[in-house]
């Protein structure tokens, strides 16, 4: 059952990617809609695959690295799809986002799962803390992709080498707005998620704060994205500078996800 769900999810994401790429190449609206449709189908089956995996292992998706990665891919897909709907079915970005979703999904499900012990019940606050944190990271990932597209398109426009691609991508202004929307989703999620984390720690230990490198890096990430959000809306930084800052911020997020989680943090392994 799990294998079938994984195969079907992968197939839906591959078809979505193929359709989005074809849409980028041909500009055919119908094919773009197919891309969105396959992505939505992939999301549903991906959810079932996550559910099946958790049931089978008697654990939650974020209890191990692979589950966290899969959940990350799923939340990235949801964030992107919401953004696509919100910004008037702007589908040309899909071809750049779906590869990340697919890579995270495949990496999570093709790699051998850790030997897992059933997760102890930690309550709703903890589950929301983790899910909102991963949602925030996926929103930041999306804003990074959008900023990279902005930088590429702007370079083409400034160098007057338009090619076919420029006519299919969203306008620079829309890319900026999409990136800012995505960062806003990330900021709200990470703020609530972090607050819930502190609340959960307080309930468990009776104290709000004790030192963990993850706290510091999370606050740095939060601060960096608040700075981006402010600067991107002020004229002097609007454009390439804000986009470069957004890409830089995501590099910090990746550091938080990898180096800090694996080597420095005591209490955060996979999120």
């Amino acid at each position: 059952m799990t294998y079938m769900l994984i195969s079907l999810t992968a197939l839906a994401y591959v078809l979505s990617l193929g359709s989005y790429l074809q849409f980028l190449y041909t500009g055919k609206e119908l094919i773009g809609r197919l891309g969105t449709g396959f992505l939505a189908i992939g999301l549903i089956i991906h959810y079932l695959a996550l559910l099946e995996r958790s049931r089978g292992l008697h654990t939650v998706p974020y209890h191990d690295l692979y589950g966290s990665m899969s959940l990350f891919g799923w939340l990235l897909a949801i964030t992107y799809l919401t953004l696509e709907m919100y910004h008037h079915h702007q589908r040309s970005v899909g071809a750049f986002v779906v590869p990340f979703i697919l890579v995270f999904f495949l990496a999570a499900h093709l790699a051998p799962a850790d030997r897992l012990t059933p997760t102890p019940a930690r309550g709703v606050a903890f589950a929301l803390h983790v899910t909102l944190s991963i949602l925030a990271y996926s929103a930041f990932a999306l804003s990074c992709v959008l900023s990279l597209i902005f930088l590429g398109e702007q370079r083409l426009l400034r160098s007057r080498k338009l090619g076919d691609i420029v006519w299919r991508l969203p306008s620079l202004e829309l890319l900026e707005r999409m990136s800012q929307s995505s960062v806003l989703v990330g900021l709200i999620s990470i703020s609530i998620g972090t607050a819930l984390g502190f609340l959960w720690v307080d309930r468990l230990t009776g104290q709000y704060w004790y030192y963990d490198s993850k706290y510091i890096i999370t606050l740095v990430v939060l601060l960096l994205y608040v700075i981006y959000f402010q600067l991107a809306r002020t004229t002097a930084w609007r454009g390439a500078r804000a986009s470069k800052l957004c890409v830089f911020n995501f590099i910090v997020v990746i550091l938080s996800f990898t180096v800090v989680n694996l080597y420095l943090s005591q209490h955060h392994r996979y999120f």
Partner: protein
Amino acid sequence: MEIVLVGLNHRTAPVEVRERVSFTIEQARRAAQELREQGILSETLVLSTCNRSEVYGVPPETARGSAVALSSFLSSFHSIRPDMLTESLYHHYDQDAVRHLFRVSAGLDSMVLGEAEILGQVREAYRAAHDHHATGPVLNRLFQGALEVGKRVRTETELGARPMSVASAGVKLAERIFGKLTQHSALVLGAGAISEQVVSQLHDRGIARLYVMNRSRDRAEDLAKQFSGEVIAWGEWDTALQLPDVLISSLATQEPVLNREILHRAMAARGNRAIFLMDLGLPRNIDAAVAKLYNVYLYTLDDLTDVVQQNRNARQSEIPRAETIVEEHVGKFISWQSSVELIGLLDELRGKLREQRAAFLQERLAAMHNLEASDRANIETMMDELLEKLLLAPAERLRGEKELRRKIQNVEALRDLFLSGREKP
């Protein structure tokens, strides 16, 4: 049920002839009415644009006969010598006429390949003819097909997707940077013809505010008045350059008017808000070094001409895809036309067989004196049932099987075979 088309366009006729043969809406209505009253056509539609005048029709007799009468009609309707028209007019019949209309509707036959306006013009011409009851089942089907082809070509190919003039390329590029222009403003330097073209396009795209600056204030005011803009005094660079998102310059000047220093100051005052500069002047009005400033997008006339050329090539490469859609719909129309004709033929055949059945029975039953009236009635009913049974299966197959209709190419040959001696209804 033939179709005839007689017309001329930008390829076959010089502008002097096209002007004389064009139709106003009222003229088109009158021409369609006269053509039907004179019995030249039973269904009529006049399509008249600045580049073409075409009359589509369904003739009561043969298409070729009607084409000659139609040419004479055009000559007398527009009071133009027949010999002047002869060289310019083209005649298309049936499948060729259908294909021609579908190509026109797709923008494949336009002066500017893939232009969008023609589809609206075809729609208007059809609506007008339909409202005046000049069309019938054939032209209704034909023009509905043409509108579908036009729509499909525009949504499924990129034939009309990219700008093909310097003015529209500039405006589209502005939209690549700023998105919708309804919240943005433009400044025009110079009030020449090319600036006017760009301003007209910006106006059509809903630009929020328009400012005009020109050495001659009178000309600036004329342009500003035409497009509901405001005039800014010449030389007020620091004020003027803070306002617009798009700047169009087409000044006649030997030296660049806007140099790096002026723009650098302006960008600082604007807080680096992006600006798109279209330098349409020759010699150039804006120093090339300006392009290096942060958030400045500078395009010269040559750059925009290159964009247009790239787009032209891209449109050319879309022709095969558009032609495939046209051919698909030509096939559909011909299939529909055949089905209508074939089903009509079967009805005629049924009528002929009934007549023959009546004559046959009358002759044979006359010799059978011992039959009761009820037996005679039964025999007639049975023969009718047999006839219906024989014709039912082919009629159903003709209605249901496209491939069969496609195979039966020549309905007239079938008519000759089964209905020789009968006049076409």
